[in-house]
Every structure is written in structure tokens, then in C-alpha cells.
């Protein structure tokens, strides 16, 4: 590394200080943009995969939105890296273009006008036509056609029909004109305009072909019912994609509509798109009103003796053992709007669904018999099992005593963590069993079991048995090669957006991250069951959990849109570039967007860290820090606004009082917090090793000084600091950025030690790694090189860690000399721990005063 840096240092022309500053500003800006784009891209990949595996319905709007956001972010990374590397890596452009062209080809294959039918019978409706009929009708079709429960007979008037209606009336321009005059803050004018628009739509004639179709379908319905049934018309909006689906279902419903009033009711519901609250909602989010289309369900009215709502879980608590039923006599919205007295039943979710609590409006006349209540509970659970999340179900009981399902939707907002109900039922069976470990972050959902196999080095990888549970300290991308063999993954650190998590989701391997202490708790060879969804690890195989996990429904699977997204993801998420030291870690090897992000991220870090060396400034441009009592000399290069404005720049020195760079002041505070007591007594063995190494490696001989040797640089701006340190034989780089944006706030640290033999060098970074982990750094160690990072944290949090890092920079090297004497190490570590505790306490006290 030294050799490499020295070469770079020599190869770069000396630039004037202003040029260095300007170059740095440009590089730093590119770097920050790249880091932000990287985080965004990884989160988008993770969200898209999660959607794909969740079974939740999504349409092309979602797919296009996610793909666009993702490609734009990856594009930004590529541009930033090319800028950051002064034009190297141009070939990434070509790779990027090739991959995005392929993705675009997949996306544009989807015939978006696939649903041109204006009316679809309920018998052909399920989630695959959600883009035509809206979520509400798609769900009802699922319940009828795939769960096999009784729903009202009927049909859906599709988005294509609504579009056809609006286009044929040519009133859209007039509607837009009226909306333009509208100030949504003026409620009175909002209501006026909203009403006027709805009247406009109501007054417009239905196109003749749609009118005919509507009457034809109603005619078939009448034939099947043997009469002219009254119908309900329900809104089933679409066009508001899944990310913001909260508004769907807020539109109008008309009950008891007679044959001659159907057209009028249909228009009324289409017009309810312009209800005042809907106008406000869309306007605030920049939706074009004309992009939201109203699907409408037309369903035969149920002649109900009673009706109500069933929650397959008590709505406030997903873990509750209860299912809750509200019931009232007759049919209508009384239960929903709470306007009349109703029966309230709590029923055990577990078969035989005992009715446990019943508050009856009239104890003499319950709406449901106990058998009927139990049957409703059974049906509610079937629906929940089918959709995979707890459901809020509208139901009715007809005069023949049959239960009819009117509508079902997820309770509350669809939760990412909502687990399949079968799994939950199984979980209730293991309730009594204490998990070995609980908590952490679900990186990939599911349940898996196997023998624990801890992996810390390449040798462990080679010995990894099939179907074992991969246990690691840090989710390095390198471990991804094991995922086709692993039953589950457990990691002490890491988040859902890491590369390994992405790959785990791709392989469908359950993964539970961020479980500190997991490696200590788990024994190699011990059989465990990892329930990544519920974030628990059990001893042994928990068969009910494993059995339940095998039946995960995915209702979108097989649909054209699901297939399309799945195919697009093959160009996005697989990661081939895992090993930065590999000769194949090159732009040409990038086959997916994930590869490109990985490459850009890795190279950006390298570029940024090497900046100070690549652009070696003239000695004149660097000020020497005027200090006493500190080892070595310290140089400061002001990149922007790191010095007090009135600083005297005519002298070659700078005082610490003249520096206003917050990250540097934090590091410096740590460096000077405890007086340096000089090197500790050297054990003979330690000294011998260092001398021997120096003799073998002339680069490390202090007599062969490079320009960098003994020089320690701070590159500064007010909110940024990049420090290169050479102390003794160690080489360290610390970089910190403070920003009001969490995505741009981080501390980054790299350390590599020279001298001493391989074993001691490894031991040294292990000790340093342990200390850094204690203050919440994410630490990666490869051989004798360590890199550590904290990101996306508030400034005071980072500042405290930076102070401790400053302290460690100066003091850990003392451990070096005594590494062979365990007694010494223990004592030094004790002292270091005590120092750190005191430094942190002083900082916290300082904040309070």
C-alpha cells in the first residue's frame, strides 16, 4: 500500500493551493453525491425485491417508478465516479447503458393497454387484472375464484371504460380549467369547484357502446338472479401506485341501485374522483387528476338479515389471539360508521373458534348464532391466509343463512413485517419456548434450520457444509457465494440494505442481521432454527415453524407484471463483483446494476482517501500546526472554510485556535485528551520482531523516508476533515463529514500497520477492531487492514465517536509493543477503556453545561 501511495504521490503534478482547493471541492462534491446515490440505489433494490416476494399487489406504475428511480441513482454514481477519478472508468458508461437498455426492453415489452375490456365479469377477475379493475375488485375476485367463498354476483367496469367515458365527453379540459382557478386553502371555493366538476361529469352522456355493454352485463346478471336485482356500485380506484395506496378506497359507494339508475350511479362514482379531499390529496403530491382512473364494481345487493365487519386479528395488535366481529341487523354502513348499536364478538383464532367475549346490543336477539359466528371466523382466517396479512372484511348474512363476503382489505397500512398467518399460528405453538436470541433486523424473511457454521475467513468458506446456518460477524459481500448452500444467515451487524441481504432475498434464504453477541451465543455445529421474520433464533429444529414457512403464498406470482419485474431484476440485483482485490473487479465485469453500484462505491472510497496523496500540495500550502506535547508533526491544508476568516496566513504555522473545522476539532480533542506518555516499555520479543521486519522490508525502514513519512495531514473544510496519519509504522486515514442530511454524515476510518510479523499485525487490527465496535463502528477486517465506518447518524453522535477515534489514533499504537505479553495487553486495554469512558463522560457533561 505504501509503495502504491508513494507512486501516486510522485506521479501527480504539484498544483497550486487554489487549484488543490478547487479540485478537492469538485471531488468532494462528487463523492458526496455518489454516497447518497449508493444508499438510495441499495434501498430501492431492497424495496423492490421485498415487494416482489411479499405477494402484495402492484402495477406497472410501481415497477416503472422503482426502475426509474433506481437507474437514475446508478447513473449518478457512474457520473460521480468518473468525475471523482478524473476521467478514469469511462467504460462504466457503456456497461451502464447496455444494462439499462436491456431493462428498458423488458419493461416496454409489457403491453400496457392489455386491459382494453370495458367490463369484466367477476368470474374472470383476480389480482392479475388489478391494473384494470382496481385493488378492491381484484381482491373480491380472488376471494370468489381462489379462496372459493361466496361473494355477490356481479362485474367490474374497468379503468379503460372510465378513460373511454372521460375522453368521449371532452370535459377534461373544462375540468382542468376549473381546477386551475382553485385555491385549495380556500375551503369554500374548494367545495364549490369540486361540486361543479362532479355535476359536470354527472351531466355528461355515457358513450353509446359503454351504455350498451353495461346494460348487457346487467341483463345477464338479471337472468342469473331471476329478476331485476338492485345492485351496489363501489369505487375501486387505480392509478395511485402502491407506495401511496392510502387514499384508494376513500371514494363513493352507492347501495340499492335500481336498474334504471345504474348509469347515473356509475357516473356519480367516476365523478367522486373529484371529491374535495381527493383533489387536495392529489394536488399536494403532484398527481395529475386525469391519471387516476376509477374502476367500479357492480354487485348484486345481498338481502341481508345482518351484516358487519370482521377483523381477522384484533386491529390494534397483530399478536392477539382474537378475531373480532362487529355485527348489526340489516345491511348498511351502521357498523362501519358506528352509528347504531351492534354486537361485538371476540373469537379465538384457533380452531374450534370459541366465542370468548360477546357484547350484544340486544341479548335477546343476537345477530349471529354461535355456529354462524364460528363459520365467519373460519372464512375470515381463510381470507387472511390467502392474502398473507390480517384482513378487515365486510360481510353479510342473507335470508338463506349464507355468509356473503362483500369486501376485504389489509388492516391498516400493509406492513412490510406482516407475516403469513400460518407462520403466526405456528409461532403461537412455540410461544412457550425461549429463543436463544431475539431481536435484530430482518434482512431476508423466512424460517430456516441447520447446524451453525461460523465463517470468519476464507478457510471457513471452503469448509462450509450444505444446509448449514451461516453465522458471521459482518455481512461481507464475499459470503454471498455460500448462499446457495446456506439454510439461513445470522450476522452480528449489518442492515437490510447491505449486499449480502440483497443476495439472501434473491436466493430466498432467511437472514437475520444486527444481532450483537450472536457468535458468542451460538456454538459451531449446534442445530438452530432461525425465524428471520419474527427475529428469533431457537435451539434445535422447530418443525411447526419450518412446516408453516414452506407454505408462503404469493398471489402475484405468475402474473404478467410479476414475471416482468422478476425478469428485470435479473439485470439488477445479482452481485458478481464481490472481491475488490480480484483481477475481475473491473467495469467490464459489471453485469448488473448491483455490480455497478458495488464497483463505484469501492472505487469512490479509494479515490477519496487517496486524494491528499494524489494531489500533493506544495509544502508552502500546508500550514504546520503549532503544538507542543504531541508526537510527530501535524500539517493542515485548508480546502475551503476550515480556518477562521481573520487567520494570519503569512506564517508557516497555524494555531489550533484558528481552526474551525468541526470534525477536525473533534479528532484533535480526542488526540490531545490524554497526555501521550511516550512509547511503553518494549518487550524484547516485540522489539526483535519489529527490527527483523524492518530489515526485511526497506520500505519500512525509517532511514528510507518518503516525503510522506513522518508527515501527518489534515485536509479541512468547516464540516469535513480528511486526516492521513503515519505514526510509527502505522498508516491510518480518517475522514468525517458532518451535514444536516443524515445521508451525508459519516465517519470513515482505515488503518494498516507495517512492521511486526503477520500474526502480530492481525492481532493488532483485531484489538483495534474490537475497540471500534464498542463505540458502534461497523468494522471490516481483511488480513492486517481494517476499515470502519459509521454513517447516517446525527452530528453529536458522530462527534463523540470521532473524539474517541482521535484518542485511539494516538494511543493504540502503544499496544503494539507489548503484544506478546498478555498481561501488558490486559493492563493497556483496561487503561484505554477507562480513558474512553472518561472522555465520553466529559463530552456528555460538556453538552449539558
Amino acid at each position: 500500500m505504501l509503495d502504491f501511495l508513494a507512486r501516486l504521490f510522485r506521479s501527480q503534478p504539484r498544483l497550486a493551493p487554489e487549484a488543490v482547493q478547487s479540485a478537492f471541492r469538485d471531488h468532494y462534491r462528487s463523492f458526496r453525491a455518489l454516497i447518497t446515490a449508493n444508499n438510495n440505489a441499495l434501498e430501492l433494490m431492497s424495496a423492490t425485491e421485498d415487494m416482489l416476494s411479499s405477494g402484495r399487489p402492484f402495477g406497472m406504475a410501481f415497477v416503472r417508478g422503482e426502475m426509474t428511480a433506481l437507474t437514475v441513482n446508478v447513473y449518478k454514481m457512474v457520473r460521480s465516479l468518473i468525475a471523482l477519478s478524473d476521467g478514469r472508468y469511462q467504460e462504466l458508461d457503456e456497461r451502464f447503458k447496455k444494462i439499462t437498455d436491456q431493462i428498458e426492453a423488458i419493461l416496454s415489452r409489457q403491453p400496457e393497454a392489455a386491459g382494453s375490456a370495458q367490463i369484466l365479469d367477476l368470474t374472470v377477475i383476480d389480482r392479475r387484472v388489478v391494473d384494470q379493475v382496481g385493488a378492491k375488485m381484484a381482491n373480491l375476485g380472488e376471494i370468489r375464484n381462489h379462496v372459493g367463498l361466496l361473494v355477490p354476483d356481479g362485474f367490474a367496469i374497468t379503468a379503460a371504460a372510465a378513460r373511454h367515458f372521460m375522453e368521449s365527453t371532452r370535459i377534461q379540459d373544462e375540468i382542468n380549467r376549473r381546477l386551475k382557478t382553485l385555491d385549495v386553502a380556500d375551503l369554500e371555493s374548494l367545495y364549490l369547484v369540486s361540486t361543479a366538476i362532479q355535476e359536470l361529469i354527472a351531466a355528461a352522456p355515457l358513450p353509446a357502446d359503454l351504455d350498451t355493454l353495461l346494460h348487457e352485463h346487467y341483463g345477464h346478471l338479471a337472468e342469473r338472479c331471476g329478476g331485476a336485482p338492485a345492485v351496489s356500485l363501489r369505487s375501486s380506484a387505480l392509478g395511485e401506485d402502491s407506495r401511496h395506496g392510502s387514499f384508494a378506497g376513500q371514494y363513493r359507494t352507492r347501495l340499492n341501485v335500481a336498474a334504471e339508475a345504474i348509469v347515473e350511479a356509475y357516473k356519480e362514482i367516476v365523478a367522486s374522483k373529484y371529491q374535495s379531499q381527493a383533489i387536495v390529496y392529489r394536488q399536494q403530491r403532484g398527481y395529475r387528476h386525469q391519471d387516476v382512473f376509477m374502476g367500479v364494481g357492480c354487485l348484486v345487493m345481498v338481502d341481508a338479515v345482518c351484516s358487519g365487519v370482521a377483523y381477522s386479528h384484533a386491529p390494534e395488535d397483530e399478536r392477539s389471539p382474537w378475531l373480532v366481529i362487529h355485527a348489526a341487523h340489516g345491511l348498511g354502513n351502521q357498523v362501519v360508521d358506528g352509528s347504531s348499536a351492534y354486537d361485538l364478538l371476540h373469537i379465538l383464532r384457533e380452531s374450534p373458534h370459541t366465542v370468548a367475549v360477546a357484547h350484544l346490543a340486544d341479548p335477546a336477539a343476537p345477530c349471529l348464532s354461535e355456529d354462524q359466528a364460528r363459520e365467519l371466523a373460519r372464512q375470515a382466517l381463510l381470507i387472511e391466509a390467502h392474502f398473507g396479512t390480517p384482513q378487515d372484511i365486510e360481510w353479510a348474512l342473507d335470508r338463506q343463512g349464507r355468509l356473503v363476503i362483500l369486501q376485504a382489505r389489509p388492516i391498516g397500512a400493509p406492513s412490510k413485517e406482516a407475516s403469513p398467518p400460518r407462520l403466526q399460528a405456528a409461532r403461537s405453538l412455540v410461544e412457550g419456548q425461549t429463543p436463544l436470541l431475539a431481536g435484530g433486523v430482518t434482512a431476508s424473511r423466512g424460517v430456516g434450520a441447520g447446524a451453525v457454521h461460523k465463517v470468519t475467513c476464507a478457510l471457513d468458506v471452503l469448509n462450509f457444509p450444505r444446509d448449514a446456518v451461516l453465522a458471521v460477524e459482518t455481512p461481507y459481500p464475499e459470503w454471498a457465494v455460500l448462499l446457495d448452500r446456506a439454510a439461513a444467515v445470522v450476522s452480528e451487524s449489518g442492515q437490510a440494505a447491505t449486499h449480502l441481504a440483497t443476495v439472501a432475498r434473491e436466493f430466498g434464504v432467511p437472514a437475520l442481521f444486527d444481532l450483537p453477541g450472536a457468535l458468542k451465543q451460538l456454538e459451531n455445529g449446534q442445530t438452530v432454527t432461525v425465524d428471520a421474520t419474527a427475529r428469533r433464533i431457537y435451539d434445535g429444529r422447530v418443525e411447526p415453524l419450518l412446516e408453516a414457512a414452506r407454505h408462503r403464498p404469493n398471489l402475484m406470482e405468475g402474473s404478467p407484471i410479476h414475471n416482468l419485474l422478476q425478469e428485470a431484476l435479473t439485470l439488477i440485483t445479482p452481485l458478481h463483483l464481490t472481491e475488490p482485490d480480484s483481477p475481475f473487479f473491473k467495469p467490464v465485469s459489471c453485469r448488473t446494476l448491483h455490480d455497478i453500484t458495488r464497483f463505484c462505491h469501492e472505487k469512490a472510497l479509494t479515490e477519496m482517501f487517496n486524494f491528499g496523496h494524489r494531489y500533493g500540495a506544495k509544502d508552502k500550502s500546508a500550514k504546520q500546526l503549532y503544538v507542543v506535547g504531541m508526537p510527530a508533526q501535524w500539517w493542515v491544508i485548508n480546502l475551503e472554510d476550515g480556518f477562521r476568516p481573520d487567520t494570519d496566513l503569512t506564517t508557516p504555522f497555524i494555531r489550533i485556535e484558528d481552526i474551525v473545522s468541526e470534525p477536525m476539532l473533534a479528532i484533535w480533542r480526542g488526540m490531545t485528551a490524554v497526555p501521550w506518555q511516550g512509547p511503553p516499555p518494549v518487550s524484547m520479543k516485540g522489539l526483535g520482531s519489529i527490527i527483523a521486519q524492518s530489515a526485511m522490508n526497506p520500505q519500512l525502514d525509517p532511514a528510507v523516508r518518503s516525503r510522506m513519512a513522518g508527515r501527518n495531514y489534515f485536509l479541512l473544510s468547516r464540516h469535513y476533515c480528511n486526516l492521513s496519519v503515519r505514526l510509527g509504522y502505522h498508516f491510518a486515514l480518517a475522514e468525517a463529514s458532518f451535514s444536516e442530511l443524515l445521508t451525508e454524515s459519516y465517519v470513515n476510518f482505515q488503518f494498516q500497520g507495517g512492521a511486526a510479523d503477520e500474526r502480530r499485525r492481525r492481532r493488532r487490527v483485531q484489538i483495534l477492531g474490537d475497540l471500534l465496535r464498542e463505540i458502534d463502528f461497523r468494522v471490516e477486517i481483511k488480513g492486517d487492514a481494517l476499515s470502519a465506518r459509521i454513517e447516517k447518524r446525527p452530528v453529536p453522535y458522530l462527534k463523540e465517536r470521532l473524539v474517541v477515534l482521535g484518542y485511539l489514533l494516538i494511543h493504540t499504537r502503544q499496544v503494539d509493543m507489548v503484544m506478546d505479553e498478555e498481561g501488558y495487553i490486559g493492563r493497556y486495554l483496561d487503561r484505554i477503556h477507562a480513558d474512553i469512558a472518561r472522555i465520553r463522560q466529559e463530552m456528555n457533561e460538556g453538552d449539558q453545561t
Partner: protein
Amino acid sequence: MKRPRNILLVDDEEDFLATMARRLGRREFEVRTATRCTDAVPIVASGWPQVVVLDVMLPDTDGIACLGRIKQAAPRLPVIMLTGHASMQASLQGMEQGASDYCLKPIEIDELVEKLIIAFNEAGASA
């Protein structure tokens, strides 16, 4: 001294412009609006805005062409593209033409504000 944070919003929907102007105004941004590219370019040329938020669908010209004209008038001015219909190619085309970012409608105000702050930092850094 606090730098002024001037934003030019260009979108053909006046109601959307008015809402956004008010909401951004509450967060201490100075906002001016234009519904057409022809109105936007002179404002850009005057040097007033530090960031432009530009809808890709405009009545008088398409957004990409408008972006070109804005970039011609002020090459280093950050422009955030807004699009209702997500289109990968159009968005990438915008980025290639020099847009600094893009935002998908429906807009989450916090997301837009975050992108604006990044754009202002860039504008400040290169000023």
C-alpha cells in the same frame, strides 16, 4: 449570514405550483413559479434562482428541450426534473442533459426538500 434559497418552479399546473410554493415557502425557501418554458428562461437568465424544479411535461415545449434552454442560459444551475409518468429513458435523458436530479410525482415534500438541500449545497459549493 444565511444564504438565500431561491427556487424556480416550472410546471404547467398552476394549482400544483401554488400549493408547492406555499409549502416550500413555509420551509424558508424563496419560490417563484412559471407555467411555461418561455417564462422560465428569462428568470433563469436573470440569475435569480439557485435551483430549478422543472416538470417534464410543459405546454409550449417538452421538458427535455426546456432543460436544454435553461442549461444554455445557466450551465451550472442545478435542475431537478419532475415527472408524473415514470420513464427510465426520459429520466436518464434528462440526467444526460445535465439535470442534477429527478423527482417522481406524486411528490413527498420531504423527499423534494432533501433533494433541494443537496442541490443548494452544490450550488453554494460551485458559486
